[in-house]
C-alpha cells in the first residue's frame, strides 16, 4: 500500500490571507480529516467525486458492454462517467473500414446507443448514485495515431458526422449543449481551436501532457478506457453537485482537479495522488514552482509555501521520464526549483 504524507510547516499549502483569495470558494475545504499514518491533513470536499470522462464500449473498440462499464465504475464508487465511443470520419479508407468492422458509431446504430445510455444512466443512478454522460469521440484518421485528430463531445444528444472540420464539430457539440474536449492529438491546432473547446485532455491513461499542463488552458484528465485493465489512470475529480448539467458546467468553469487513480486503492482518497498538491491548482493553470518531477516514490518540498509531499508508493507506472524532463526544463527556466528527491526503492 502506498501512502501520501503532507506536512504543513509555516503556511497552508492552499495559501493564506490574500493568497487564499485566489482560490475558488469551492476549493476552500470544508472538512479536514486527520488520517493517522497517512499524514496530518487530507481534505475531503463534501461534494467531491471522481469521474472518468473518456470510456469506450463495445459500440466501438471497447471490450466491455455499457452495463458492464456501469457496474465496473459503480462498484468502485465513481460519481460520474462519460461513455465516449469512437465516431469516425467516413471519407477516408480507414474510416470506412471502421464502419465495416463495427468499430465506430454510425447513424444506424446511434439511436440504440443513445437508448442504452439513457436506460443505463437511470440504472446507474438508482443503483450507484453515479451519473452517466452520453458522449462520443469524433475521430479523424483513426489508422495513424500520429496523424489522428480526436475530439470528445460530452453531454451530446445528436449524431454528428466526423467529416466536418474540427472547429465546426466543436461548435456543433456546444450547440447541442455539450462540452467539447480536445485531446492531445489536436495540440498542434491549439491556436485555431483553443477558443472553440471547453477543455483539453491533459492526461489520458497514465500519461500526462506537459505542454497542456503548462499551457494555461482548461483541462481534464481521463483514462480512455478500453478494458477493465485501463482503470488505473488519471481521472478528474469534481467539486459540484452530482448531475449532468452541474458536471458540464464544472468542466467549463474548471471546478475540478486531476487525480491519479489507482485501482488497487479504489475510492480511498487518502491514497489518490492529487495533482493540485503537486503543483496544479484547481481552476487555474498555475504550475506552482514546477514542483512536478521525478517518479514514484517521490518527495517534493515546497519551501516557499511550506509544503512537503512525499510518497512511499512502490511499483508506480507513472511516465517518470516525462516528469523528470519537465522538472529539468523548469529548473533551467526558473532556477528556483524546489528540492526534489527521487529515492529509488
Amino acid at each position, binding site marked *: 500500500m502506498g501512502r501520501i504524507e503532507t506536512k504543513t510547516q509555516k503556511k497552508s499549502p492552499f495559501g493564506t490571507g490574500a493568497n487564499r483569495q485566489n482560490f475558488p470558494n469551492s476549493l476552500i475545504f470544508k472538512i479536514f480529516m486527520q488520517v493517522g499514518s497517512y499524514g496530518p491533513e487530507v481534505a475531503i470536499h463534501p461534494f467531491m467525486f471522481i469521474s472518468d470522462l473518456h470510456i469506450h464500449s*463495445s459500440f466501438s473498440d471497447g471490450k466491455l458492454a*455499457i452495463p458492464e462499464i456501469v457496474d465496473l465504475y459503480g462498484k468502485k464508487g465513481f460519481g460520474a462517467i462519460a461513455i465516449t465511443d469512437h465516431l469516425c470520419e467516413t471519407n477516408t479508407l480507414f474510416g470506412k473500414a471502421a*464502419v465495416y468492422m463495427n468499430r465506430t458509431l*454510425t447513424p*444506424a*446504430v446511434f*439511436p*440504440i446507443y443513445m*437508448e442504452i445510455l439513457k436506460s443505463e444512466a437511470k440504472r446507474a443512478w438508482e443503483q450507484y448514485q453515479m451519473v452517466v454522460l452520453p458522449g462520443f469521440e469524433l475521430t479523424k484518421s483513426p489508422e495513424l495515431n500520429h496523424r489522428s485528430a480526436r475530439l470528445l463531445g460530452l453531454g451530446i444528444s445528436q449524431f454528428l458526422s466526423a467529416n466536418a472540420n474540427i472547429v465546426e464539430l466543436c461548435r456543433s457539440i456546444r450547440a447541442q449543449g455539450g462540452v467539447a474536449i480536445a485531446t492531445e492529438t489536436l495540440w498542434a491546432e491549439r491556436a485555431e481551436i483553443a477558443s472553440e473547446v471547453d477543455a483539453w485532455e491533459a492526461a489520458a491513461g497514465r500519461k500526462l501532457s506537459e505542454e497542456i499542463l503548462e499551457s494555461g488552458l482548461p483541462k481534464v484528465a481521463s483514462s480512455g478506457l478500453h478494458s477493465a485493465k485501463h482503470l488505473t489512470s488519471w481521472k478528474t475529480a469534481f467539486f459540484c453537485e452530482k448531475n449532468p448539467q452541474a458536471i458540464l458546467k464544472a468542466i467549463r468553469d474548471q471546478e475540478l482537479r486531476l487525480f491519479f487513480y489507482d485501482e488497487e486503492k479504489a475510492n480511498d482518497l487518502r491514497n489518490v495522488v492529487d495533482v493540485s498538491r503537486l503543483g496544479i491548482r484547481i481552476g487555474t493553470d498555475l504550475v506552482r514552482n514546477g514542483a512536478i518531477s521525478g517518479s514514484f516514490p517521490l518527495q517534493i518540498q515546497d519551501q516557499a509555501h511550506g509544503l512537503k509531499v512525499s510518497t512511499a508508493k512502490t511499483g508506480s507506472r507513472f511516465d517518470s521520464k516525462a516528469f523528470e524532463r519537465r522538472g529539468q526544463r523548469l529548473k533551467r527556466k526558473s532556477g528556483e526549483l524546489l528540492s526534489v528527491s527521487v529515492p529509488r526503492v
Partner: protein
Amino acid sequence: MDNGLRENLESFFQLAYPEFEILFSVADHRDPACALVDSLIKQYPHVDARLMVGAVDVGPNPKVNNMMNSYNDAKYDHILISDSNVRVNPDYLTKLVPDLDDDTGVVTGVVLGVAPQGFGGRLEQSFVNTFYARWMILGSAAGFPTVIGKSMFFRREVAKRFGGIANLSRYLAEDYMAGQAMLHLGLKVKHMTQPIPQIIGKHSFKDFWQRHVRWGRMRKMTAPLALFFEPLNGPIVSGLIGAYAFHKAFGISPLSFMAAHVAVWFLCDLLIMAAMKAEIDYTTPFFWLLREISSIPHWAHILAGNTVSWRGSRLKLEAGGVLAEPSVQRTA
C-alpha cells in the same frame, strides 16, 4: 397466404405450456388470414388467443409496424415473435423458456426448411439447410448476433433498455439489430438446441432469387466484409482457389482436386442436414449443386444494388441496414 398456414397457426394452439397467450398480428382486416385465425380461436376456446388488426407506423419496416399493437398489448413480459410460416412442436415453449436465463438477451435457433414445393422451393430448402445453417452456426461461434426473426424469444423489460422493438423499425434486419443490441447490453444470443421448422411451400425460381437478393443486400449493408468474402463459404470459389494452389504447388490436376473438394463439401453439408433431421432424397445432390453454382451470379447481383422489394414495397437500404424512409415507394 403462406403455405400450410392453417397447420402452422394451429400448431401454436397445441403448445403444451401452463400459461401463455397468442396474439396474431395482421396489418389489414381484408387479409384472408383474419378469417382463418377467427375460426382457430373458436376451435380452441380454452386457449388465450386474440387477433390484433392494424399496423402502427413507427418506421419503414412493415413487419415491426405490424407487430406493434400486439407487442404493446401483450400480457406477459416474455415475448416470442414467430413468423407465420413456422410450425412448432407442442413442447416448443417447454424447451425454449429455460434457455432465456438472466445472462441471455434473446433465444433464437437454426431454421430447418421443410415441405418445399416447386423448383424454387427445392433451391430454397437447399439454401436454408446448408448455407444458411452453416452461417448461423459459424456466425454464432464467432460472436456475431445471428438472430432470425422467425423465432425470437426475449423479455420485454430487456428490450425496453434499447428502446423496444419500435427502435428497430428503421432497420430491414430488425432481428440482427435486436441481437446486436442484446450484445451491447452485455447479454448473450443463444440458439435453441433443436432447429425451428419453417414450411417452405411453393416458390418459383424468381421468388427464390428475389428473396435472397433481399437478404443478401441486407447482409451487405449490415456486415459488408462478411458478404464480400461470402463466396469463400461455398465449394465453388474456395475449390477454384484450392485447385489452382494445389496444381501450382504439387502438380495435382485441377479437375481432380475440384471434384474431390466439391464431394467432401457436399458430404459435410449432408452431415449438417442429417444432424438437423432434414429431408434428404436422391435429388438432394442435384439441387445442392445447382444452388452452389447459382450462388456466384447471385452474389454478383446482390453486390450490384442497394434496393430490395418486400411486402409490396420497394425499399432502399443504407449503411448499417437502415431503411431509407424518404425513398420508400409503397406500391400498394
